[in-house]
Each structure stands twice: as structure tokens, then as C-alpha cells.
């Protein structure tokens, strides 16, 4: 197990011209399932509970590259983006509007499927506020969709036979009306 002195030393050696600045900002390195490597600022990395636990519980040196086999590269990019913004807004007094604008942009180019994958990842990485936000975003996108759409999205098999399905549907026909099924 490395000591913290070794840790600082190794960072200084790896850094470039702005060594002094980087010295202050410790970095944590993770590798995602597709082999991509990410350098996270310590304060951002600590927002991700699974990373925080990994390094803090056993006092693992920051030299160690933490493997994240359940996370894709693009997901890590998004998670870092959100957590970085969250940390930035922590210090702002009235960040409400800015947060809302950021959140709208954040989900803008993601398909519902990707959003769902990202939600799953936020759950695995244990970032509660991101998980809450993403669950809300997914629910907004699916609330007016029909049963077939939801089955497809969540990859659920229909285990009702035709008769059973009609029976269940007939219990509340009003729930199946006025839906919005544009493809997303």
C-alpha cells in the first residue's frame, strides 16, 4: 500500500507545465468497460459513492486505476459532466435557473433507451441526486406511452396470454386512452 507521499510524487512526475496547479487537484483514474481511461478531479470523484468507498474504505492509493466494468465510456462522460456541474452549483447561492437549463440540455440528445441505460449506471455508481433526476426524466418520457413501447424499452417479455391480457386491460379501459406514441 502506497503512502500519500508516494502518491504526490507520482502525480508530480506525470504532470506537465502546470505541475503546481495539478498538485493541489488530486486526480482519480478509472477505466470503463470499453477500456477508456478517465481522470477525475478528486472533488468530482468523491460525488460518486462507489468510487469514494473504493478509495477511502481501504485507503487505496490514488495511483490505482479503478476498474468500472459495468460502465460504458459515453456514460462516464455524462456522469462526470453532471457531477462537475453539481459541485460547481454547490457553491452558488441561487443556481436554480442554471440547474434547470443545464438539466434540459443534459438529456436533450439522449434517446429514452440511452437515458434508461444511464439511469441504471447512476444506480450502480451510487450517485443519488443523478439517479433521482434521471428516474424523473425517464418517467416523464414514458408516462404517455403504451404497453408495447414500455415492454420494448425495458426488455420485458409479455407473460399474459391473449385472454388474460384482454381481461386485465378491460379492468380499466380509461387508462389506455389518450396516449402519445410518437417514436422517440
Amino acid at each position, binding site marked *: 500500500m502506497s503512502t500519500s507521499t508516494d502518491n504526490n510524487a507520482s502525480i508530480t512526475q506525470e504532470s506537465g507545465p502546470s505541475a503546481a496547479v495539478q498538485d493541489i487537484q488530486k486526480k482519480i483514474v478509472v477505466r470503463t468497460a470499453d477500456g477508456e481511461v478517465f481522470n477525475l478531479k478528486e472533488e468530482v470523484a468523491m460525488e460518486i459513492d462507489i468510487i469514494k468507498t473504493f478509495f477511502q474504505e481501504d485507503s487505496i492509493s490514488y495511483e490505482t486505476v479503478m476498474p468500472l466494468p459495468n460502465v460504458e465510456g459515453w456514460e462516464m462522460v455524462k456522469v462526470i459532466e453532471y457531477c462537475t456541474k453539481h459541485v460547481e452549483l454547490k457553491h452558488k447561492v441561487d443556481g436554480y435557473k442554471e440547474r434547470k437549463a443545464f438539466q434540459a440540455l443534459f438529456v436533450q440528445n439522449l434517446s429514452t433507451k440511452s437515458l434508461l441505460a444511464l439511469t*441504471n449506471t447512476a444506480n450502480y455508481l451510487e450517485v443519488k441526486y443523478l*439517479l433521482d433526476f434521471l*428516474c424523473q426524466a425517464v418517467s416523464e418520457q*414514458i408516462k404517455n406511452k403504451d404497453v408495447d413501447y414500455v415492454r420494448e424499452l*425495458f*426488455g420485458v417479455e409479455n*407473460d399474459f396470454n391473449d385472454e388474460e391480457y384482454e381481461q386485465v386491460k378491460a379492468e380499466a379501459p380509461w387508462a389506455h386512452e389518450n396516449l402519445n406514441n410518437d417514436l422517440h
Partner: protein
Amino acid sequence: MSMSKMKNESFDLHEDVIVKILCRLPVKSLIRFTCVSKRWRSIIISDPQFGKSHLQVASQQGTLCPKVLISIYPTIKAIQGQIPYPFKDDTPWLPSRFQSLEGYSSVNNLTFPSEEKSQRVMASCNGLVLLGEYYKSYFKNLSIWNPSTGFFRKIPSPSFGFEVTKSTEKKNYRSFLYYGFGQVTATDDYKPVLIKPALGDFVDVHVFSLRANLWKVIKAPSSSCIGWIDGQGSLSNGAIHWVNYPIYGVSDPTMVAFDLAEEEFRQVPLPVFNQNEDGVHLRQIKIQVLLGGCLCVWSQDLYGHSEFWVMREYGVPESWVKLIQFSQDDLPNEFTSCSSWDPTFVSEGGTMLIKLLDKKELVWIECRQEENPVCSAQYRIEEFPWAIFDGTLYDETLVSLPEGL
């Protein structure tokens, strides 16, 4: 069976995540998604924990959807054109019909999930409706129903008998029984409460705990329970409220509350009405609950002037604020020749849903400052004339109760 069997998927969706997403959906979507798979159906409708979580999220986010439960109690054509009287025991009642009303006009017929006859809606809490069969000045065969999910549970009859008493108090001709229904949040228990009018020093309060599946009799001093007008109590802040007229026409009315957790009575202050008019003690006072939960009181004086007051801070007498006022004459045309009317709910913005009992109609009126109330919508109960109807406010929830212990 898992909630998600991945086919050609690159990620393994955790069950917790699916439940967290579902918790945030409106009830209509969730009812629809009970058709997704058997597992989803079981989680959404049959898991009391899910119903509870969903209610918590919806309450916090302010997305609870209030609806009106319209109950229609038909009878066969009466003899000699007599209008059916609500509480006469020998009126031949047909099975009750129920509809749910959302907004101004979206009506759905509901299937009542039981063979029980003549069930009357008594009260509602967190989307659960308490029903009972009115018989000889008592409600028997009580049951709990969630109209949004179909959840249904019969309540066992109490082992103690109830006396069949004749009320000698003429002023209580409308009901011989006082009742209410509410939740004890600390223990997640739901309790129907039935109270007979006082005949001696003490009055019996019959309380049922759904969690314990037990009836209890609480003795309370009858001074708390004399001279109540309305059978149905109003739920607010974990207590059921009734208006108390110790000596009608002589003393000031007060409000009594039965605390469901402590199982005891306490006084709650009423607003201070205009003291200068004559006959201040002859006001008719009825309790409503404001959409959003604050206690609201409707007072009508001898001259047909109505006032609606809201207690902004529970238990604080100074927090009573007059929200709305109008005279009988100010009311729109729909009210002409309809002296008997009853509010079902009042909203902060001055929207009121009123039952026009004689005309078998529900009307919405908007009450704005400095203006006369305006009728914004109407709903006619289409039924052959020999029926009485009622409207009860309830929230659309997925709340259910765990299997008996």
C-alpha cells in the same frame, strides 16, 4: 420471474431502478402498465410498500390527482311518488353504482368489486374509500375500497353488539351516527371511527385498526359529543373533526377533534364570526377540507349568507382567514329553486364543487373577489328519478393494505 428479461441488451437493468422510475409515474400510467407483465402487475397493484412509496413521492411532488367519487344509490320506483329517504331502513335499495369524475367532464364507470349490497360511501383517506351498509342507525358490513386499483377488503364485524336506539333528539333527524376515517402516519395504520350520540355521561367511540385488525371501544365524556350536526367528520392533521353545538341557538358552536393516534378528543377553535349580527348562534356550520389539506369551515347564517374560512396553521386560532363569501342571491341561475346544496370541495383558488341535491347535479362555481360566483361546469347524474347521489373527494393512489396478520 424478474421484472426485466433482457434480450439483445447491453445492460442489465436492476429491479430497484425500475421501481424507482415507476414510483414517479401518475396512477393512470401505472394502471396501464399493469398490462406489461404479471410481475409488473403484482408490484403496481398488490404490493402495499409500492403503494406507500408512490403516495409519498406524489405528495412531496404535489402530483396527487384528486377525483370525485360519484355514488348513486338507486331504489325501485317508489310508492306514491315518494322521494327516497336516505336512511330509512325499509326502502328497497338496488346495488349502488359508482363513477369517478376527473376535472369537469371526464367520467369513468367503476366496477364495485364485491357482491355487498347497498354500500354507502362514508369517507375517504389517501385514496382509500370507507363504505358501509346503513342499517338501523348504524353502519354495518364496513369495507375499504381503492377505486383506482380495485383493491377491496372487508372489515370484520365487531364482536360487541351495538344498541339500536331511537334518537329523541329531533334536530339530528339527518343522521344518528357520527363517523370518520383517517390514517395514523406514525404507524401507517388506517382507522374507521363510529360514534353514537350521547345518551348518558359517556359515549362509546368505536374504533377499528386496520393494522391490528381489531375493534376497540373508547369511552369518552359525552360533553364532547352533544349536539353534532353532521354525521361525517372531516379529516385533517391526523384527527377527525365535527362541529359541536352544546346548546343549539344559545351557546357558541365549537369544533371537536378525535385524534386517531391518541384516540382522544380535543377542542379546536373555530373562526370568530361577525359578532354584531343577530342570531349569530343560529349559524349553520359545516366543515370542509380544502384541497390541499387545510381545515375549512362553511358557515351559513339565517339570511342565506355563506362564508368559507380556512385555518392556515392548524390549531392556531389567529390563522383563520376568510377565503370566500357570498349570499344565496349571488349564486348563478343553476341554483334557482334549489335551496338544498352542499359543497364537496373547495380549492384555494376559489373553485368549488357543489352538489345540487334536488336537481341531481354537480356544479362547479368559481368564486372571485368582488364578483358573484360564476358557474363554470355542470354534471348531471343520469339515473331514473328514484335515486339519491353523493359526491366524495378522493385522491388517485395505489394504496393498499397488507394481508391480515
